[in-house]
């Protein structure tokens, strides 16, 4: 009897999205999907097409070609159901500074069709999530930058969208607010809300994102989990051993025999040991070194990350772009 494969619900499906501004091709045939409850990171340098892609996914910009489906419905500027499935959190503080947090949320909630008691409950709920329930009646222009960003996020999740699009939500915020924001986004993922997240901070993408897409020059040049991307660029875990015994052939043979080790290279400082998983290999590796009476001056683990992936794929660091 064949095993039945259960496909996760797809909340967002964009297919060959293309958008041109004059002669400039801003987005060139971008396709990807986001499953229910999945957090998808969209990484790319400035001018790579992230904001244009987000604008098309949020229904603000009409693509020249290609399609967007949200919660199974095609997205057009007039498709109300599809548009209600998205909550947009722009990079800028897209709030009215002269209104209170609650007044801003009431305004955006009403535009999303929320009314009365339900609207009031949602306002209380999202302010609770972002840790600002006690500041509901304070004006936005009295808030710190981090608090404004938190209300900015609250406004995006007010109407319980199936997909929240967050465009660099932690730019310029203090560490406390940043943690609060990341915690809130993790809560969303846990509640089954899909998240599309763009950031310049690789550690945020590594912490939050189930999968990552890398945009460069308007094209999606790579996509997958962090492990898949790492393997795609040929990066692997390294254990760097500072030892004067690097020329000892017996030692090298003993290291190669350790399970998980995929290669050994001699360097001026000692040995660079490639492994499938540095953390699990570390114990047996130290045992092998000790057994050979090798002097260990130092040990360093280097695990490939998204920064290395980005560098490998585009030839430049994300924060330098």
């Amino acid at each position, binding site marked *: 009897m064949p095993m039945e494969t259960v496909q996760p619900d797809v909340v967002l499906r964009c297919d060959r999205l293309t958008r041109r501004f004059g002669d400039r091709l801003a987005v060139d045939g971008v396709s990807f999907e986001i499953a229910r409850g999945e957090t998808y990171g969209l990484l790319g340098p400035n001018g790579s097409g992230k904001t244009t892609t987000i*604008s098309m996914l*949020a*229904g*603000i910009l009409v693509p020249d070609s290609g399609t967007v489906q949200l919660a199974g419905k095609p997205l057009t*500027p007039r498709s*109300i159901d599809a*548009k*209600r499935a*998205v*909550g*947009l959190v*722009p*990079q*800028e*503080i*897209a*709030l*009215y500074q*002269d*209104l209170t947090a609650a*007044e801003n949320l009431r*305004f*955006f909630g*009403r*535009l*999303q*069709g929320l009314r009365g008691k339900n609207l009031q409950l949602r306002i209380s709920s999202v302010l609770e999530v972002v840790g600002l329930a006690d500041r509901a009646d304070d004006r936005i222009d009295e808030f710190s930058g981090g608090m404004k960003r938190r209300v900015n996020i609250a*406004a*995006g999740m007010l*109407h319980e969208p199936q997909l929240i699009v967050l465009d660099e939500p932690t730019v310029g915020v203090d560490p406390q607010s940043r943690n609060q924001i990341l915690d809130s986004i993790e809560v969303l993922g846990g509640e089954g809300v899909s998240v599309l997240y763009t950031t310049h901070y690789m550690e945020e993408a590594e912490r939050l994102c189930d999968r990552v897409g890398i945009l460069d020059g308007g094209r999606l040049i790579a996509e997958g989990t962090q492990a898949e991307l790492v393997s795609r660029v040929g990066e692997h875990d390294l254990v760097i051993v500072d030892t004067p015994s690097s020329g000892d052939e017996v030692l090298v043979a003993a290291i190669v025999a350790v399970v998980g080790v995929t290669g050994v290279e001699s360097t001026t400082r000692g040995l660079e040991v490639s492994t499938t998983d540095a953390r699990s290999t570390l114990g047996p590796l130290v045992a092998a070194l000790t057994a050979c009476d090798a002097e260990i001056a130092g040990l360093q683990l280097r695990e490939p990350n998204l920064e290395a992936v980005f560098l490998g794929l585009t030839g430049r660091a994300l924060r330098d772009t």
Partner: protein
Amino acid sequence: MSLLTIALADLLRGLRSRSAIITSFVAPLAMAVVFGLMFGSTSSVSFSIAFVDAAQSPVSGPIVESMLSDANESVSFVRLDDLVTASERVDDGEVGAAIVFDSAPGGPGLGLSVIENPASPLAGQVARSIASSVATSVETGGRPPTEFADLELGGRDLSAPAYFGASMAILLLFFSTGMAAQSILEDRQTRTLDRILSGPTTLWSVLIGKVLAVAVLAVLGFMTVWVVTTLLFGANWGNPFAVLLLIIATVIALAGVATFVGGFASTPQQATTLTAVVTFGLSLLGGNFTGPADAPAALQSLRRFTPNGRALEAFTELSVDAASIGSIAITLVVLVGFGLSFGSIGLVRLRRTVGE
């Protein structure tokens, strides 16, 4: 529904905004109060007009004699001996204007001239109207006017607080209604517009909602000037229902102009600058700065082609002539048509700008 939500939010923001309150309420009121105090706290402006009968003709003599005995609450008449004295008295401000009857050059007819002082524009306008009525009656062989009531301006109650209240309120309407375009462009800059449009709200709802909010604020501001000048200075604006309709039509007209101007801007700062330039130009043409009679003839003829000039003329008719709604009906239609036409073009341009 989104349109009303947007309008209500912007109205609330307007009522909390210091600059909106100053532009819509405080500044026009303060300027109207200043003008009211300058012209006294009575309901009327009073001034005198001098007659110089250098012609000593059978036509000029009776007219001057009759007029001298026919002063009213607003206007008094005096006789002066010659042109030089009249010029000096007008320049000194002792009389607001002078009408000089002289022999027509090279013939037996009557020559008429008016000496004015820019500081007394209303006196100048009245004097020119008297001279014009006399000249018309002489040319057509009709009965010359012998009483102030016979003249075109006869019986008018020249209410300065009403005139300048309306004038200043109209002047500042350019700025207050210009805030709609500025607000839309600000929303684009902060990407608040993106957030709004990512939901089930159309760009048209945003644009019209914002114009509606500033229009309501502007009507409230204008009405405040009306009520306060009436209560403080006893200003007579005329038939209240007609005044209300004219205020609404004026706001629609100027909101249309301001939106049209805003349609040429791509940033809030540009919108503010353009609004200031257009306000200055139209106010000059429309007579908001110069008073009803102080502009050169060429500019006065252009006045009717500006929405503010046209509105000011209608406010003057309501106040001075106690005109009815019927007599300003064409102006109401013109103002609303003006506002809708220019406003539509402005909205289309703004839509293109913020939709890019």
